[in-house]
């Protein structure tokens, strides 16, 4: 078992942990977290196991384990799910979509957050107010008009009033990536984090002749790493969970992402599949998210003390 010596200073620190009270507090924290983990892990395990039940059993009992487990039945369901969802193909698609999402989220929103935080330039204040307002716009008023604009993007003007070149971006991944970039919460989040970084840091880098982009890339992003990772994981996960946008904008089944494939099988009567095959598909779709989280979470570490950077 690890010793407390590895503990970073926080609300509790080394000295506290030597006293009984401090230790008690520590183990209370630990206990609460274990309970919280049980509340999340047990249901998750239940969900995975329920995909191995027969459909009739799945809904007739809330039992943890399947009544009978036969590997051949399970294997059959797995292969059926894999084939029905064209998982090989759709997972590659989802991967491509998720990469674009990350680039859009981190760079479009990150740069905006950087400028809004560190530059007092005319117009930025107005933009910030509008960004905050953007958060409050209900999606329902824009769903259809946004879609209508995709058929000749970016300037939807009729024949008489054509500005520049327009493209039909339906059936491409652009609408998904642009949606990922148009995230006002992430802009504010980045701004919020960059606000905590001293402006002097930016100024001194500028005196050294760094371009704005380089400052953002080399200084701001590394310092704000935990939040960058949060945003990146969010952007990746969206690709693995959102079915609506891909289903709406893609026509070609070969381009669909995994969640969209799942959605297409769910209700349309002709294609409907047994519920436990569907659940199996859901599990497949969530494995990549879990892997992504496991891989990236270790980058969420503090310890880049601002004092050190300043020095």
């Amino acid at each position, binding site marked *: 078992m690890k010793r407390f010596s*590895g503990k970073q200073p926080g609300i509790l620190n080394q000295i506290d942990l030597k006293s009984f009270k401090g230790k008690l507090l520590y183990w209370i924290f630990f206990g609460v977290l274990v309970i919280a983990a049980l509340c999340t892990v047990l249901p998750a395990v239940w969900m995975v196991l329920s995909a191995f039940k027969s459909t009739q059993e799945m809904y007739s009992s809330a039992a943890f384990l399947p009544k009978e487990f036969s590997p051949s039945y399970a294997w059959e369901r797995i292969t059926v799910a894999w084939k029905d969802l064209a998982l090989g193909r759709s997972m590659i698609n989802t991967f491509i979509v998720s990469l674009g999402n990350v680039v859009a989220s981190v760079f479009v929103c990150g*740069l905006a957050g950087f400028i809004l935080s560190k530059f007092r330039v005319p117009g930025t204040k107005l933009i910030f107010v509008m960004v905050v307002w953007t958060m409050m716009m209900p999606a329902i*008023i824009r769903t259809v008009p946004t879609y209508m604009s995709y058929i000749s993007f970016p300037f939807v003007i009729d024949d008489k009033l054509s500005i520049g070149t327009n493209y039909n971006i339906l059936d491409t991944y652009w609408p998904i990536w642009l949606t990922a970039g148009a995230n006002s919460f992430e802009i504010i*989040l980045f701004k919020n984090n960059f606000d905590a970084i001293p402006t002097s840091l930016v100024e001194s880098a500028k005196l050294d002749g760094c371009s704005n982009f380089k400052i953002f890339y080399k200084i701001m992003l590394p310092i704000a790493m935990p939040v960058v990772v949060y945003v990146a994981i*969010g952007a990746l996960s969206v690709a693995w969970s959102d079915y609506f946008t891909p289903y709406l904008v893609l026509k070609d089944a070969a381009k669909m992402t995994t969640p969209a494939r799942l959605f297409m099988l769910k209700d349309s009567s002709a294609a409907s599949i047994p519920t436990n095959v569907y659940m199996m598909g859901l599990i497949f779709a969530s494995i990549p998210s879990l892997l992504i989280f496991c891989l990236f979470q270790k980058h969420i570490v503090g*310890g880049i003390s601002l004092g050190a950077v300043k020095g």
Partner: protein
Amino acid sequence: MKANTKISREKRKQKLKRYLGAWILLLPAVIVLYLMIWRPSFMGIVWSFFKMKGYTPTEFVGLDNYIQVITNSDFGRVMWNTVQYVFWSFLIGFLPPLLLAFMLNEIVHFRTTLRTAIYLPAILPGVSILLLWYFIYFPNETGMLNMLLAKFGVDPYVWLNDSRFTIIFIVIEMTWQGFAATMFLYYASIQGIDTTLYEAATLDGANPFQRFIHVALPQMSGLVVLNVVRQMIGVFQVLQQPMVMTGGGPNGASTSVGYQMYQYGFVQGRVGQALALGTIVFAILIVATCFYFYLNKKVEENQ
């Protein structure tokens, strides 16, 4: 004189260059927001003043759509339900992610394992989560909670079917489903806190509780404020849970504004009214948020 104008011109040129350098980096976000949100939303708002045939505006009707939405006998009920959603989601859902994030930051044993485990609800597909809660709340002896009650000799309870508390039960499900992502955000932000601050506070003789209140929380306040706004906006428009879990029932007890908009816009084909209600929601949220920021400022000034 001449030299002066030259300098000022030089200065202005430099200033302009600085502005331009900043704006170029801001531009991608502005363009994307404009194309994906501002322009279409504006179109939606304009159309809310029209009589709509499908999604084709046919005739300007002023406030007709708004009047129809507001005079609908369900309007008051739906608004009140939505306020309840927001209220309960703060009461139930606000603290857990924040406290868990801090606790997670304090421990050294099994940290990675616990972090991953607690993050699971954010990864699990919504459909399976709803299946799970279907069983948890099932209103006879086969429901998970009722099985638990039976152990204490309590009769099965009807959970979601009890119109007095339906919203609370839905909010509990929302909290379970949503807290992990928020907790993770708080956690990421706590990682950014300069650890020397804690040390300094310790030297000043602050106990753990004081360090939490006076060192950690102030560092987080910006994010907490932001998250409160986000939670309010999200819960105000909640659609998925009432739609799948209760269909807004029993007898309208859990119909949210989001569900009402969905009914107007997609099910009933009353496009103009859906857009009008969306615009009303937009206006309410702006007012509520401004009020919240104003309060927040007052509180900060008083401190």
